């Protein structure tokens, strides 16, 4: 092997003596030096933003009323200190119903945070008794941050229920110590998973995966053609070395040149992330071999072209064309995959008698048609809204569901959520032809009363259904809703412009001082005797007293307050599953932690269902199902259809479990016997068939250098950040079925083929 090491060493010497290497190293150094001052700093900020204004409409209404001298004293005091222009806007709104944007409201409230003299003991008599305000109320010489905290607290009190309180935790992006832009409503610890999961992969994908890779291809393109200069090649070939090994060694030499640059740059980035952001992510170092491998894919093409045409320009052009081809095929695949698989993926499953329905990621409610063996779209999405529910209410013989625009990571859309009511299609009734002949469209829906603000979940509740909203739990009152509808028609008939909800169609079940803040979740026992809520690491136990829920117990978990968790409960046991942490088994009566489900590991969960006997089934975001007995003592992984690929679960009336899995499939299983009782396996449509039998096989065969980015994202992702969520809704993202290492194997096969062809070509060629 001595001659080949000599060639490799010579390639290294050549690189070291080349100006290109030094120019690149200087460029990388400048880039690292430029980003080095970029950092995050943590501090206190009580500024308002889109996520902590729960009901901007209510606030605007109340402020507008205050402008006319109505409303509470607190609201009037707040109005009095607003800037004059906004005051005029509010007066206009009160008089002419003119619209004011939420952004403007936030800006004005943020300006108010820095205004002195808002506090008035008579207006806010209880402020000095509140632990979070006491010190700043008493302190006359308040700092700017303390003033902000005080004013924020006062405004929160003025608009209770419409504003989510702020912990004051905030972080800023800084450059050389100078704050850039507004405060991020996240602590640095909360921001880190986003940086590791979103920012790092983006930088790697765009900066290194595209930018640096293209530079590398251009720079290395002459290496193989240069080898063919007759005066040097013939001398090399006269030595006792094999042509193939000579080529491969030159290939490795090119890769070594690029590797040298990648190592330098990525170690620099690793140190930057560690020193400046306190993120010591070893994944960055793992990216070194992955980027070298990605370069090898392109370079194997460039090298073969160099052998054939011996021209660096042709090498670059053909490699760029190869890149474009791969990208094109990748995009086509992604487009079909997104539309047919990801958006169409089941997010929830529900059954009523023989009727099975699913809600998709795209916001479609679909019913199973056994005749055509298809999921029929019952109600299409409206601007990509997400389905809440559905819930079957037998008294009304109706299916209720909601549609809301859910924004990721706690952002609010500002749109109201509407309730939709439909009847279950009677598939056995020969006269019910609508479903069989035509996809139901939205015109066949009865629109119900507007849902409470920030409605998050529907659940079965007594003879109706319940709504879990930001400011409490509500029960739908069909009679009131009907009266409201009637009144609406009457008033509408007289030509009055009226709001959608005239009478409250939802009865508040929880007290008005409900102070749950996100992240939060709710668990309702199948008996409906017990309700457990989770909010920012704290648990509350509610029971029914006089048709209202009353808090009967409190507890807390030793987890960071910002941890997102879901829970399920029966009458004795509650299971709380915080993301990335082994689930807690909680005693319902005492809210004390009874044990941890260590067998499950540090998983993240998307759904928990409880059957009528209190048995739990937990579904992880990875698609794994866990069965836990009613006392939370035994935890097993059932061998049922869909295990590992499950997307949604639901217990039917007979305590049999519907498991939606593998895209659009669903199976009804008996957990005791672990047998599938019924299967919903939809036939492929034309588009699905084209994807399954044409596009996907072609994509699989086609080299996929860009797919290495998926592996890079995987290694960059801290195992603790497998699921990143700020809100419970963030757990409902589509499950992407892919093995991060598949691109390595498929691309490795491509590289081997290309190098083999190159060696064969070189062996056969007269030089």
């Amino acid at each position, binding site marked *: 092997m*001595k*001659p080949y*090491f*000599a*060639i490799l060493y*010579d390639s290294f*010497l*050549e690189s070291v*003596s*080349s100006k290109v290497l030094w120019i690149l190293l200087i460029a990388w150094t400048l880039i690292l030096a430029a980003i080095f001052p970029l950092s995050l700093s943590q501090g206190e900020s009580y500024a308002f933003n889109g996520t902590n204004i729960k009901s901007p409409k209510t606030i605007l209404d109340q402020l507008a009323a205050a402008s006319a001298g109505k409303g509470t004293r607190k609201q009037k005091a707040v109005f009095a200190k607003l800037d004059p222009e906004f005051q005029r806007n509010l007066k206009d709104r009160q008089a002419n119903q003119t619209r004011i944007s939420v952004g403007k409201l936030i800006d004005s409230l943020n300006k108010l945070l820095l205004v002195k003299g808002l506090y008035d003991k008579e207006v806010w008599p209880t402020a000095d008794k509140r632990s979070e305000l006491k010190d700043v109320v008493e302190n006359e010489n308040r700092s700017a941050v303390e003033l902000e905290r005080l004013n924020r607290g006062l405004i929160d009190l003025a608009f209770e229920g419409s504003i989510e309180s702020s912990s004051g935790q905030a972080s800023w992006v800084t450059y050389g110590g100078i704050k850039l832009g507004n405060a991020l409503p996240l602590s640095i610890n909360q921001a880190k998973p986003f940086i590791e999961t979103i920012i790092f992969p983006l930088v790697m994908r765009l900066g290194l995966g595209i930018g640096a890779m293209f530079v590398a291809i251009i720079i290395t393109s002459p290496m193989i053609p240069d080898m063919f*200069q*007759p*005066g*040097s090649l*013939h*001398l*090399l*070939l*006269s*030595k*006792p*070395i*094999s042509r193939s090994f000579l080529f491969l060694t030159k290939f490795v030499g090119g890769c070594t040149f690029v590797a040298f640059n990648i190592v330098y740059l990525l170690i620099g980035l690793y140190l930057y992330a560690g020193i400046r952001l306190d993120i010591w992510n070893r994944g960055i170092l793992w990216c070194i071999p992955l980027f070298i491998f990605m370069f090898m894919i392109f370079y194997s093409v460039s090298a073969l072209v160099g052998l054939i045409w011996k021209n660096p320009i042709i090498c670059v052009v053909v490699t760029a064309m190869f890149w474009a081809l791969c990208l094109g095929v990748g995009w086509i695949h992604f487009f079909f995959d997104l539309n047919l698989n990801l958006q169409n993926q089941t997010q929830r499953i529900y059954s009523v008698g023989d009727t099975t329905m699913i809600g998709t990621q795209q916001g479609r409610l679909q019913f199973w048609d056994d005749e055509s063996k298809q999921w029929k779209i019952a109600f299409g999405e409206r601007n990509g809204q997400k389905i809440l529910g559905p819930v079957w209410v037998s008294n009304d013989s109706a299916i209720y569901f909601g549609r809301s625009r859910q924004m990721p990571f706690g952002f609010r859309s500002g749109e109201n959520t509407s309730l939709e009511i439909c009847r279950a299609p009677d598939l056995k009734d020969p006269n019910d032809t609508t479903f069989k002949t035509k996809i139901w469209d939205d015109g066949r829906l009865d629109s119900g009363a507007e849902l409470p603000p920030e409605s998050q979940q529907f659940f079965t509740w007594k003879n109706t259904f319940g709504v879990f909203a930001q400011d409490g739990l509500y029960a739908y009152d069909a009679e009131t809703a009907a009266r409201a509808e009637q009144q609406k028609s009457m008033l509408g008939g007289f030509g009055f412009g009226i709001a959608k909800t005239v009478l409250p169609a939802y009865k508040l079940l929880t007290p008005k001082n409900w102070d749950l803040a996100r992240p939060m979740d709710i668990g309702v026992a199948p008996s409906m005797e017990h309700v457990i809520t989770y909010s920012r690491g704290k648990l509350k136990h509610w029971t029914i007293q006089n048709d209202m829920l009353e808090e009967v117990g409190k507890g807390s978990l030793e987890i960071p307050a910002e941890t997102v968790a879901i829970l399920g409960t029966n009458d004795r046991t509650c299971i709380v599953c915080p993301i990335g942490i082994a689930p807690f088994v909680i005693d319902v009566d005492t809210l004390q932690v009874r044990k941890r489900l260590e067998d499950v590991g540090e998983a993240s969960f998307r759904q928990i269902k409880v059957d009528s006997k209190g048995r739990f089934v937990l579904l992880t975001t990875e698609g794994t199902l866990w069965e836990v007995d009613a006392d939370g003592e035994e935890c097993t992984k059932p061998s049922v259809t869909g295990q590992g690929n499950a997307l949604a679960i639901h217990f039917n009336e007979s305590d049999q479990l519907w498991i939606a899995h593998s895209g659009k499939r669903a199976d009804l299983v008996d957990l005791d016997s672990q047998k599938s009782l019924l299967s919903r396996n939809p036939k492929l449509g034309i588009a699905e068939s084209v994807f399954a039998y044409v596009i996907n096989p072609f994509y699989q065969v086609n080299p996929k250098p860009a797919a290495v980015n998926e592996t890079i994202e995987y290694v960059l992702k801290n195992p603790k950040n497998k699921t990143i969520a700020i809100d419970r809704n963030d757990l409902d993202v589509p499950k992407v079925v892919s093995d991060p290492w598949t691109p390595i194997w498929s691309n490795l096969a491509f590289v081997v083929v290309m190098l083999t062809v190159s060696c064969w070509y070189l062996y056969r060629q*007269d*030089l």
Partner: protein
Amino acid sequence: MQSSAMAIEVADLSKTYKEGLVFRKLHNALNDITLSVQRGEVFGLLGPNGAGKTTLIKILLGILHPNQGTARVLDMSAGSKSARRKIGYLPENLIFPRHHTGRSALYFYGRLSEMSDAQIASKERELFDLVSLTGREHEPVRRYSKGMRQRLGLAQSMLHDPDLLIFDEPTDGLDPMGRSQIRDVLCQLKQRGKTVFLNSHILQEVELICDRVAIMALGKLRGIGTIDELIQNHPDASKATVIVEVLGSAQQVQDATQNCVISRIQTVQDSNDSQSAIQRIAVDASNQENVDKVVDQLRAASVSIYRMERFRPTLEQVFMSIVGSASAQPKEN
């Protein structure tokens, strides 16, 4: 197994190039070449440009694959790794990578020849002395003159002490001083008993160094043998003539040789002084009596004989004759 006495054995070797991507044309670079080179021999391969000399060398080194025939080097298949281990090669228009110094280049090619650094170190001084590069070995090769690069090329070819040295146009493009230095190195190799296969179209150096010579033209072997054999085989060699140069006027010479058989009289140097003029007489030497008679009569007429030699064709004449006749033949494709 007894090793063959032949360093190179080539039999019925043919090579055809395909030219053009769409309308492919065939070009016969070598056509049924058969030759052999003995161990310890300095063998010259002569031929005009395009004769097929470099093609033959590339086949011997395994750089090209022959279409037909066999080639063996040092009793091994030509182009095999084991054969290449024992060959030192100096290519035409040698280019060294620009980042090398003379010394690092020597080490690089030494390592490619499977030598250890210690082995290279033990020979580098001697080689740099031999090729007169001592003191310049640490300079980058990009600053070397062409002659220096060629000498460095010679040094690398000898580094691993090969049994066979193949030099392709080693003095091409060099000034007389450079050629002389290369020739000196070749002479030393000859003295050491190395087998040298020299491809050149500079006839004088071939004539000076080579034991045997092959002449190629248009892909065919046109002649092979020692230089004497090639000359003897030349048609002019049978035309026996003795050239006599005498001091005297043309009239004196004509008078003195009236009864002799002479081809021509040519004035080489004219002068008013008859004793200073030189005349060249071509005497038919097929009959020795005629030569004696001319000498006797010239002396009897008191004409001084200045120089006298028997005529023999030069290698250049032989080469031109062979190549010229080959060019006159219709081209074979």
